[in-house]
């Protein structure tokens, strides 16, 4: 069974076609969830709208649970699923720079495509910025290649890192997410904004 491509159940070209459909679903859900609006997205950082928090963490937790259950039933081999590599310094630097970009631009790359799809001009400008940013990174690559590759830790899962089972870690993440949902709704009541 899954992953279908790695196990050669479907061909590479079918894979690309399916990527297109996955993308459609991805874009549709993001837009329906309100991720096409930068003011809604930025709301989470001021407490007036925590939709990002709710959608993002519900999504992450659902996906995590789903993959663990699929693996439990033997429908997917989690060893064949890509786990992002961890380069410690680079991950932190990247996260900090992205966080700054997020609060300034009000979008992240995925959501900006979504905003652009429904005609948000600020989203299109943000995408132009993304291209410039990646280009700057590419051209200046020799300057930061060292730091980019420093602190390589392989592809550890957090559960391996802390030495607990994946299930228990999943439960901890869920508890954290639920606490955030309740905190978020509390914040929305505390810092209400009607018109935006």
């Amino acid at each position: 069974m899954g992953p279908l491509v790695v196990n050669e159940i479907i061909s590479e070209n079918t894979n690309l076609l399916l990527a297109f459909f996955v993308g459609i679903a991805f874009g549709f859900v993001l837009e329906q969830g309100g991720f096409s609006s930068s003011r809604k997205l930025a709301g989470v950082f001021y407490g007036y709208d925590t939709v990002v928090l709710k959608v993002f963490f519900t999504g992450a937790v659902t996906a995590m649970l789903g993959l663990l259950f699929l693996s439990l039933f033997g429908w997917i081999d989690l060893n064949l699923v890509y786990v992002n590599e961890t380069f410690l310094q680079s991950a932190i630097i990247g996260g900090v720079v992205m966080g700054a970009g997020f609060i300034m631009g009000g979008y992240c790359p995925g959501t900006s495509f979504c905003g652009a799809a429904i005609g948000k001009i600020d989203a299109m400008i943000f995408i132009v910025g993304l291209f410039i940013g990646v280009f700057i990174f590419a051209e200046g690559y020799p300057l930061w290649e060292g730091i980019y590759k420093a602190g390589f830790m392989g592809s550890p899962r957090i559960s391996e890192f802390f030495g607990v089972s994946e299930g228990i870690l999943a439960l901890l993440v869920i508890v954290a997410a639920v606490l955030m949902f309740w905190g978020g709704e509390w914040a929305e009541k505390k810092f209400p904004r009607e018109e935006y």
Partner: protein
Amino acid sequence: MSENRKSNYMNPYLAGVLLGLVVIAANFISGRSVGASGAIKSTIIAGVETIAPAHAESATFYKEYTDGHKGNPLNNWLVYQMLGVLVGGFLSGILSKRLTWKVEHNPKITSRTRLLFALGGGILFGIGSQFGRGCTSGSALSGMAVLSLGGFISMMAIFGTAFALAYFFRKLWI
């Protein structure tokens, strides 16, 4: 300009569950997840290879990519996926009647300011996504789904920094 906008969106938890299902589907099909910045990188590389092939052969960044990837960089899972995102977002916009040309901004700032900051934010996000080896979708969301340590670190750095800087950019948003 924002009558009953709030009720117009899907319930966030429902949207989140659906988002999770999309990530699961992506993983089930190809063993990898969603991502946006990778598509931009592929496009840049394809562009440079077309416009300045000599440069693409000599500069380290492009060479490392072509060494690791065969074929046309545009023939890539993430590129097709991002095309899908445009279509999906558009369909959703039609369905919920949200298709309009506009610059969305806080009434307290001008469109010009908003666009300048959008450009700056985009540039920073573009650079950051390369360091982080993926953006909020590719690194944080997908990374959390597979319990990747790097994904969690990126996610916390992104949201932590944005929260820390929120005060300084408050004029943009509230």
